[in-house]
């Protein structure tokens, strides 16, 4: 098992290196740099030039890359130009938010997907199934950002059930119960917005998985043993159908990355997605590099996770 994970990690290594080179080159190729935006008569161009030199922005890319990679290995992702703090600190601040948002989203996604998929798959081609399928169709067709805006509009502003921005109420002290509750409250609407849209693929997947499993021979065996319908579903069909869903769990991370980029923007939620967009716009290269690398690593880890989960839950490929 450990051997497997280690070996799996070994092959992710070249992926990460390739990714880092790619990202770095792309970031370098972007027009302008962090100082381009400072076209302000209040700020002396000479000062800007001096800073550029100081930040090493005038060096050739490979020198910069080697420096950067050297730093990365020591856990130093460089300094954010805009925030004037080490990128690691900046990410530390933000990643907590994105992490919890993702966790909440995943919980909602599965909370919605599993029952709906089960019902839809079990009672396929009934009215109930059609309604759920209808929902998945609409979900597929609705762009996340429009949906999120509407959610924000209705529940944030018109009904005022949820806060409309930020990750926590300003006046609360960390560590208190109110603080935790406030954080949760801030998470709910964005997480629900992603989940309601994103879950449809899982619902559909689960549905077709159940419809498939229903027709497998071993289900007939179970029936022939005299198992009741509910037992057949709970013990045999569901378990076997959830397996691929569980296996895709790791890949969900990549989907979440996309979701958070949109959602954080709309809900002014200070997480990694928002950080990424603003850093691209501001040409805060060290941050762009770090965020993409991190998300890339997250996706790689996600794939790894999927493999591991699959290998744990599926005895057919269980690793010893």
């Amino acid at each position, binding site marked *: 098992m450990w051997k497997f994970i280690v070996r799996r990690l070994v092959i992710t290594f070249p992926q990460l290196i390739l990714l880092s080179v790619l990202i770095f080159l792309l970031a370098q190729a972007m027009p302008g*740099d962090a100082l381009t*935006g*400072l076209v302000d008569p209040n700020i002396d161009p000479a*000062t800007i030039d001096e800073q550029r030199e100081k930040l090493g922005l005038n060096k050739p890319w490979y020198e910069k890359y080697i420096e950067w990679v050297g730093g990365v290995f020591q856990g130093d992702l460089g300094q954010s130009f805009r925030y004037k703090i080490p990128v690691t600190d900046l990410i530390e601040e933000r990643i907590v938010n994105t992490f919890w948002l993702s966790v909440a989203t995943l919980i909602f996604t599965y909370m919605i997907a599993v029952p709906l998929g089960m019902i839809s798959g079990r009672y396929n081609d009934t009215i109930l199934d059609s309604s759920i399928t209808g929902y998945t169709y*609409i979900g597929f067709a609705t762009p996340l950002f429009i949906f999120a805006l509407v959610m924000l509009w209705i529940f944030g502003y018109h009904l005022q059930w949820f806060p409309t*921005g930020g990750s926590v109420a300003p*006046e609360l002290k960390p560590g208190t119960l109110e603080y935790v509750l406030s954080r949760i409250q801030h998470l709910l609407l964005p997480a629900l917005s992603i989940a309601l849209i994103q879950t449809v693929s899982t619902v559909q997947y689960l549905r077709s998985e159940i419809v498939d499993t229903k027709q497998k021979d071993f289900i007939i065996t179970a029936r022939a043993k005299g198992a009741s319908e509910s037992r057949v579903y709970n013990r045999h069909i569901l378990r076997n159908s959830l397996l691929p869903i569980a296996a895709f769990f790791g890949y969900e991370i990549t989907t979440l990355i996309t979701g958070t980029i949109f959602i954080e923007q709309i809900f002014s939620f*200070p997480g990694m997605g928002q950080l990424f967009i603003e850093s691209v716009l501001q040409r805060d290269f060290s941050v762009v590099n770090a965020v993409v690398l991190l998300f890339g690593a997250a996706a790689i880890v996600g794939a790894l996770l999927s493999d591991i989960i699959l290998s744990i839950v599926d005895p057919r490929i269980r690793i010893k």
Partner: protein
Amino acid sequence: MRTTHVSKWLLALMFFMFLVLAACGNGSGDAIYSIEDFSENASTEGEAIDGGTLNYGLVTDTTFEGTLNYNFYSGSFDNEIIKWFDESLLSVDKNHKYTQDGAATFEVSEDHRTFTFTIRDHVNWHDGEPVKAEDWAYAIEVIGHPDYDGPRYDSSFRNIEGMEEYHNGEVDSISGLEVVDAKTLKITYIEGTPSLLAGGIWPYALPKHIFEDIPVADMSASDAVRKNPIGFGPFKVEGIVPGESVSMTANEDYWQGPPKLDGVTVKVVNPQTIVQALKSGDVDTVDSFPTDQYADVETELTNVEFLGTVDMSYSYIGFKLGTWDKKAQEVKPNPDAKMADVNLRRAMWYAVDNEAVAKQFYNGLRWNANTLIPPSHPDYHDSSIEAPTYDPEKAKQILDEAGYLDTNNDGMRENPDGEELIINFASMSGGGDIAEPLTNYYIQAWKEVGLNVQLLDGRLIELNSFYDKIGQNGDDAPEVDMYQGAWSVATDVDPSSLYGRQAIFNFSRYASEENDRLLEEGTSEKAFDPEYRKKVYSEWQQLMVDKIPVFPTLYRSKLVPINKRVVNYSIGADFMGLHEVGVTQEKTFKAE
């Protein structure tokens, strides 16, 4: 069966969306306003209650950087936060000139080179330490330090005696800086110019007893800046949620007296939800409000009052008249440039209807500009100068006379040599929904008078590429013939950083002796006489209208909504009464 269900769903969804739309009602949107209609000061009358918390919104779709110190910040949002808990030692008037009402007073020597500042008693840092002269001097030393990583070190610092040497690491102290006693600071400048009095002096102190032990390079990332910032302003920082919000409480020890409010909460508000935030009373006021939304929400936002002032900025259209000489570090005009003929440029000015643009696009909240010094500097802006206004016939006439004729009858004019004339126009994206139609409008207007203007790249150019192209690094892209941009102006009226011969930001690359002379005189000794200075800049404004290296298109107003429960609030440049601001009731007003 699935068939009917999906379509039913779709119908239901559409119906629902219509309901949402219907519920939103309809705004007017056609009204025309004027900056004259707005006041800088909140008009709410009534007794402020004891206490209350003001909610201050920062309108941004990202976050604030959190560099919460005047000496290090670079984002404007940080500035909006710092102003509540720290302040300038020097007060200013409407023209951004220093006055004697601030936490420090000053005396100027005869030669206008030496300034002696005296910090008032009772001006104390939030931790109780008095604000001392050495704190002020320390701020200047830090900014001048070779390791300093902020954007503040500029010509006004280089103007301090001994600063260059110190900055280059040749000496350990700045000769022009003298701490006379605990409360008195003397600064000697190399050159005494009127600019010094309008933003040329660094008026912010840095608490030395806190920063002393931190290496300069680490200061901006330190907790003293990011987590526990202090100042000597009316409020004290209580808690920071990085990037999102800052909560502050009253500083009872404030030198102008204890504030009326219990505290202030500054938090980020997404521009997409700003109106709702105001409507629901979620925030009392915001740092700025998108003026193009005003017409839509004016009637809706019954719970707020809109304050207005002239923004320190203007939009303009520039022509490339030369290049940047990197070696000499100065502008190199090119008399053979495509746009070199002033008549062509003038005709283009005549061809555009900025008044209509202002009214139709901006509901009058931007207005036709005539000179390059905006009315935000009321003493220097010369409203009497007559600049070209919309007159397409005149434009055509000028072009005809200058020899720009349509010789091949394709509907577009050729240049005087009969060669095809295609003018490449660079325009920047951003600036909301209007940037794009506005650009297209200009191109259309020029087409109307027979000029073939093409949008460079066929699209609006993203900010970074735009400034790269028009030459912020000195590498002017040769394909750019003209461009559209906007400047926000400095507190001092002196425009040489934008139009001087040595200014890299002089993107039009225009230079002339007359221009050099006027810019020099504007900052000369003589210019300490306000009347003289005014005259010089009038002449300069006229020169620009005559030579048209760039022409201003629109001046801008700045609108700030404020909840009607807030009293004594102002957005004037000279406002220094944050401690006076109060609220008439605990809860905000909500819109009906």
